[in-house]
């Protein structure tokens, strides 16, 4: 009988509280959740429900106020210890790729340079080969020498996705990736995510207001007032 595999990401009673003057805002209020490897999970909920904050915590971009966060069996945050900034950076390099609503492409770099940008900070073999593979996969190989300003919104988001995947991450975090796109482009991006999950086995954690895209995820989790519904 095989042992049950440990979740890729595990959170226990996670809290994130912001203090604004005398007011305490509980953006994430005691969430406990496991995310398995190769899972495609979508967080949905109204604006202000805490889904983006939760995504940032799961992506090790922000520190929780309390609770426990484990990623790939490594403790990122607990009551006893928290990873330092250097180790967090290493973890982000190894495991994560991020896609945001705004594409955050560097306007002075070409598409190819934007995709390869993470390798300005560290080296990985076959970077160029992988970039070409991703460009083919995402249908932007004919745009590699263009500047971001010469691309459409959909193409820019594909470049951002390629950049997020260039380090071959285990987890892709996407915050409203179709927020700036029309319905046709949104559907294309949604298809790409499904393909990446099913064919490449990528774990995807998505925050979206787009019901069609949320439905394409294997698991949909609703949040309200910082709590799971």
């Amino acid at each position: 009988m095989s042992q049950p595999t440990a979740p890729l990401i595990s959170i226990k009673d996670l809290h994130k509280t912001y203090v604004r003057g005398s007011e305490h805002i509980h953006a994430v209020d005691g969430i406990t959740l496991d995310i398995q490897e190769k899972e495609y999970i979508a967080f949905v909920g109204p604006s202000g429900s805490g889904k983006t904050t939760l995504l940032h915590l799961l992506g090790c971009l922000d520190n929780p106020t309390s609770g426990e966060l484990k990623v790939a069996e490594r403790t990122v945050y607990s009551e006893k210890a928290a990873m330092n900034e250097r180790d967090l950076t290493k973890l982000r390099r190894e495991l994560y790729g991020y896609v945001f609503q705004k594409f955050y492409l560097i306007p002075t770099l070409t598409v190819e340079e934007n995709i390869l940008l993470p390798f300005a900070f560290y080296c990985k073999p076959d970077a160029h080969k992988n970039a070409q593979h991703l460009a083919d996969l995402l249908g932007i190989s004919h745009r590699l020498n263009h500047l971001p300003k010469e691309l459409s919104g959909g193409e820019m988001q594909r470049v951002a996705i390629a950049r997020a995947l260039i380090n071959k991450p285990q987890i892709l975090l996407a915050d409203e990736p179709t927020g700036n796109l029309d319905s046709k482009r949104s559907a294309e991006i949604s298809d790409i995510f499904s393909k990446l999950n099913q064919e490449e086995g990528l774990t995807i954690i998505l925050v979206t207001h787009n019901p069609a895209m949320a439905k394409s995820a294997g698991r949909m989790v609703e949040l309200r007032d910082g709590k799971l519904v």
Partner: protein
Amino acid sequence: MPSLFGIAWKNIRRKRLRSILTIIGIALSTWVLVSLLGFNQGYESSLNKDIDNLGFQVLLTAKGCPYEAATLMLKGGTGLKYMPESIVDTVKANPEVEEVTPMLMHAVFDPNKGEEGGITAFLGIDPVTYPRMKTYLQFQQGKWFNQPQALEAVFGYEAAELEQREVGDSYLLPEADVEIKVVGVLKRSGTQDDGTIFLPIRTLQKVYKVNGQVTSVGIKVNKSTDIAKYEEELYKLPDVQVVSMAQVKQTISNLVATARVMVMSIALIAILIAMVGVMNTVLMSVLERWQEIGIMKSMGAMTSHIFKLIWFETILLTFVGGVVGSVMSWILATATDKLIRSVLPYSPTSALVQIDIILALKAIGIIMFIGIISGIYPAWKAARIRPIEAIRSTEGEL
């Protein structure tokens, strides 16, 4: 593959006007710095050259103001006191003296000079001993005087141009109404001799009725002579002022020291302005790219990477500005020379600002060092950006 250096370079080109203005600021500071260093280097060698070209180590004048004597030694002068010519024989009697040449400077008002008239100075010289001391003087036309009492003149290069005279022309001595003939025009020597009109000393004494008088005596001593000791001996002579090369150098250096301090202060202010300019440009750039930098950190950029990236930008700006400023200072060396001359109490005749490659590299090094210092704060500020702060600034959602 993008490199940190490549990203920095492309970012500088992103806001071209701002980068160009910053580079201009740095270039101007470099220009001031190179010119200042070039001046420090050039002034001394130029002064030494002038003094070496005097042809004598000691000048004897009638007792008076040492500054006036120094000016006389280098530039000629007016309103002078006289010494008896017999002093030449007294000086010559010393075995340590190799050569002695008497000189008589005489200035007269020439009503035909310019629109309202002006002062013309003549230097009476001994046609035998003077050329032996001033061996560097060469003729463009003609030669020295035919006889010790000839009514003849030799014009320095600039004097000939100013008076528009050449060999064979005649020249009317002002006030005396005596006509003399131009027998020689000297080549440009880069010394005060260029602007001098030379006459035989006897002729000048006779024409202007200063017989038996001289204004100065140039003395060349043997190489083995202790000049300081010899000067002390000369002071035993009645009513003489002894001016030695060393004294002249010291006197002029003292006069110029104040001007040097002033120029250095200007350079320091210019450098400080450039430093603030660089810091402002890079800091603005960091603030504008807050999100970009945050995203880079989310992709795995370490604090050190961001620090380096911003530092590279500073170094590139200062390097380009430094090179442009050095080239500018080389091109504008003549204009700078004129500018510095206008504020100095005394300027040697040859180039005041001497710029060479070593000097330019030194200045670029200094400017880059200042740039590196200026870049620390913006780089530190950028390096401290947390990914979440950058993302939340637009993406944030509770």
